[in-house]
């Protein structure tokens, strides 16, 4: 082995390439791709054995992404909004598995809201990532439940309804790890992912992840309508303007960063102060509400409480994964059946 290769191997002898998945079929510049890349990077840096990790998702552009990372890990791309139940079943079947669940804002905030709240309530151990773009990407640009009130999109018109805040919902449902970040802030995403992977219950990561395709301001050269006017007729429907991934420079705790979104609008990110106390539940709720009123997204670890037992602990499950119990642990002996039969006579 050359020294160059050795350098590239992590503690368990795998190179970063070993953590790759299949090629992404998402739009170039889609925030979801950056998150997938950070997952690869983190798994490599943490020397995670691909065999002990499972990837789960619902349906949506975001939910496709588990196919694009950790190709040596088992994966389950399930139904729209139903990833949490798959994760719950898999976790009780094999409590040793670490799970990364990927969902979208539609997948979690609308159709899957019930399962989201309940997976958090049960504290199923998994990293639950919501790749939040405020729209339905895969069905081409409808508003999702996290879209801002008053936001205007070409396809969907003006959004008349208040947004669902994933972090608020998670905290209220009892989550013990709730964080928010931005897909373009690779370093923060990685840090939060690493922390989330070591959490003993459901760790919710709400990651703002811009959709570059449904960028619908007529005046913008990157807009859908602009593209349609200038398209070559061969690509009639699915034309998406190539665009650059949005990447931001580092910014200091307590400071704010204004980021231009693909549709020309801006979002404001505020990194939580160093003296912010993420163990104060009421404080966290208050801070989130305040941020929402002021149209900014606070980023970082919003709430942390490691004290709730997870579902396998509550169920007092044996240490051996249920799926790996030998037959003699699964079928009680004949005498037991005979005893019960005698009682029923």
């Amino acid at each position, binding site marked *: 082995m050359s020294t160059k290769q050795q350098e590239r191997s992590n503690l368990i002898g795998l190179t970063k390439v070993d953590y790759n998945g*299949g090629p992404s079929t998402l739009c170039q510049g889609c925030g979801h791709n950056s998150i997938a890349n950070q997952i690869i990077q983190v798994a490599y840096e943490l020397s995670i054995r*691909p*065999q*002990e990790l*499972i990837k*789960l998702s619902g349906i949506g552009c975001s939910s496709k992404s*588990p*196919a694009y990372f950790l*190709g*040596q*890990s*088992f*994966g*389950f*791309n*399930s*139904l729209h909004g*139903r990833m*949490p*139940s*798959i*994760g*719950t*079943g*898999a*976790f*009780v*079947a*094999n409590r*040793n*598995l670490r799970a990364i669940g990927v969902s979208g804002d539609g997948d979690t905030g609308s159709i899957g809201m*019930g*399962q989201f709240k*309940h997976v958090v309530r*049960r504290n199923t151990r998994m990293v639950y990532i919501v790749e939040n773009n405020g729209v339905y990407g895969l069905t081409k640009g409808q508003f999702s439940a996290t879209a801002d009130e008053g936001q205007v999109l070409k396809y969907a018109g003006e959004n008349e309804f208040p947004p669902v805040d994933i972090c608020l919902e998670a905290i209220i449902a009892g989550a013990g790890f709730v964080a928010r970040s931005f897909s373009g802030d690779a370093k923060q995403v990685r840090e939060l992912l690493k922390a989330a992977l070591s959490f003993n219950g459901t760790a919710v990561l709400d990651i703002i992840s811009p959709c570059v395709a449904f960028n619908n301001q007529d005046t913008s050269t990157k807009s859908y309508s602009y593209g349609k006017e200038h398209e070559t007729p061969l690509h009639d429907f699915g034309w998406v303007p190539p665009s650059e991934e949005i990447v931001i420079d580092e910014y200091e705790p307590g400071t704010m960063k204004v980021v231009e979104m693909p549709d020309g609008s801006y979002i404001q990110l505020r990194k939580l102060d160093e003296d912010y106390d993420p163990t104060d539940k009421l404080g966290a709720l208050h801070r989130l509400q305040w941020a929402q009123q002021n149209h900014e997204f606070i980023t970082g670890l919003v709430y942390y409480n490691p004290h709730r037992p997870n*579902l*396998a602990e509550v*169920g*007092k*499950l*044996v*240490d051996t*994964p*249920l*799926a*790996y*119990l030998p*037959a003699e*642990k*699964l*079928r*009680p002996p*004949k005498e*037991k*059946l*005979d005893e*019960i*039969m005698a009682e*029923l*006579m």
Partner: protein
Amino acid sequence: MGVLEAAPEDVAVRKRPSPVNDFSMVVATVNGTGSQTANLALLRAFFKMGIPVNGKNIFPSNIQGLPTWYHIRVSHEGYVARRHTSEILVAFNQTTVHEDIQNLPEGGVCIYNADWRSIPQRDDITYYAVPVNQFVRDTGMKGKLRDYIANMVYVGAVAFLLDIPIEKIDEALHHHFNGRRKLVDSNMSVVRAAYDWSAANLEKQDPYRVEPMDATAGQILITGNDAAALGAVFGGVTVTAWYPITPSTSLVDALNTYLPQLRTDPETGKATYAVVQAEDELSAIGMLLGAGWAGARAMTATSGPGISLMAEFTGLGYFAEIPAVIWDIQRVGPSTGLPTRTGQGDILFTYYLGHGDTQNVVLLPATVKECFEFGSTSFDLAEQLQTPVFVLSDLDLGMNNWMSEPFTYPAEPLQRGKVLSADEVQEKGFARYKDIDGDGIPYRTIPGNEHPKAAWFARGTGHNANAVYSERPEDWVSNMARLAHKFETARELVPSPVLDEAADAEFGILAYGTTQFAIDEARNRLAAEGIKSSFMRLRALPINQDVRDFIARHKRVYVIELNRDGQMHKILQTEVPALATKLVSLAHLDGMPLTARWVVEAILEKREAVNGDR
């Protein structure tokens, strides 16, 4: 008079040789008054006397206040089907007493509460008035307990009037209260007082009574749901996810009773199982698929409305090929329908559940013994075939107590299907959806497998043999063809039908599930009139060659079932189109278990109509 000229009623109305150990009794009470203890005490007392017996609770969708009827059939011949009429009425519900008395046949018996002002008078039945309030007052009990104690009063009176030895009631209550003597004694004091009072004050005028037999020796009495739960426990269930719904809830209740007793790891005191109460049935089946994918034996129990919510996941389970076991304890739909009444209305829905081209394996238990067996073998089939397996019980089977020979310990080891270990992946390689053995069943690996090439990506999207996303038409076609082929393999793996063939049968009968008890009785009655039939009872879908042969060798086959539209009839017509015209649907649904009388009448009527072919 020749058999064929006989008016249907002549055959349908039974001749009754003796009123000893051969009658039906109905106890009419108000829901929520605790009459279930009293009714089960009577049921088990008959059973302990060695007399074949069956009890059916006809209850309302209500917690308290609506009428409920408990039917007990006592039959020295061993018949357990519901009877159309009951000779003995225990009238303890003033709201329904008029109708209840109206329903008594000539010569019937009415035991009622003497404190009621007026009850309908008929001069062709015998009345026994029991002063309930007096007994209740004597106990000094207050409030709700009074209603409960009132029920024990009729137990005492019935015991005297039917000749049930009082110690058999004691034994029955002892069983019911799990040997807690204090409870038994306090109940027995009321039973005894009522018994003694009846002996001193009532003059027996009707002929109905019981005599000890030895027809139940060595038998057990159990509900289908309890039996299914036991089967699952001995079948190695590891993950149960569920959402409460009548009439399936008691199955999971039984799991929650038996699992801690039987499946707590003796070394660590920890659970070798998990039971998760989900937020809805959609989530419940999602948990099954997550668990089944990860290698657990996962099950749920639900009923029609829950099945409706499971449609999308069932299709995913079929297509991604994930094992799961779904018990459907059928009740009457559509919609909320008659939630506490029985039926067989989910057969079409479950067989094809899922959008696109979906077909599911459906098991059809008829007895508590089959509930126990399928409780275990359903997991074997789900894992062998790597697909969701439905088990269709019904409210009558699931919630009522049935006699049975004791269950036998499974002879076969658990069948875990084609699961590759890391070494096997190394040796043979692995392609998740490749048909290696030619039976349509591919090999799978489960998460935790250490081989770097063991992982695969479960998905509901089109995929090739390596589970990689594919929209190629030929990939789609070949995968779906393999799934269809796998379903052909299933025909030979599922439980085969049970056949009772008569040499000179005039026609055949095809049925499934609990209708068999009415059919057995009806066939005997018809045979006594010279009308011979063969009976094939289906125990699973898809059907196998035996079923095709059975239809082929009979001139006509009646398909009997408890639904309006003849759902199994429809399925069979599409399964054997060339023989479809031989199949005659006899379908009926009013929420009640089928009676032999209905079967006889329906067959004779249809037979009359087509009897050009005598």
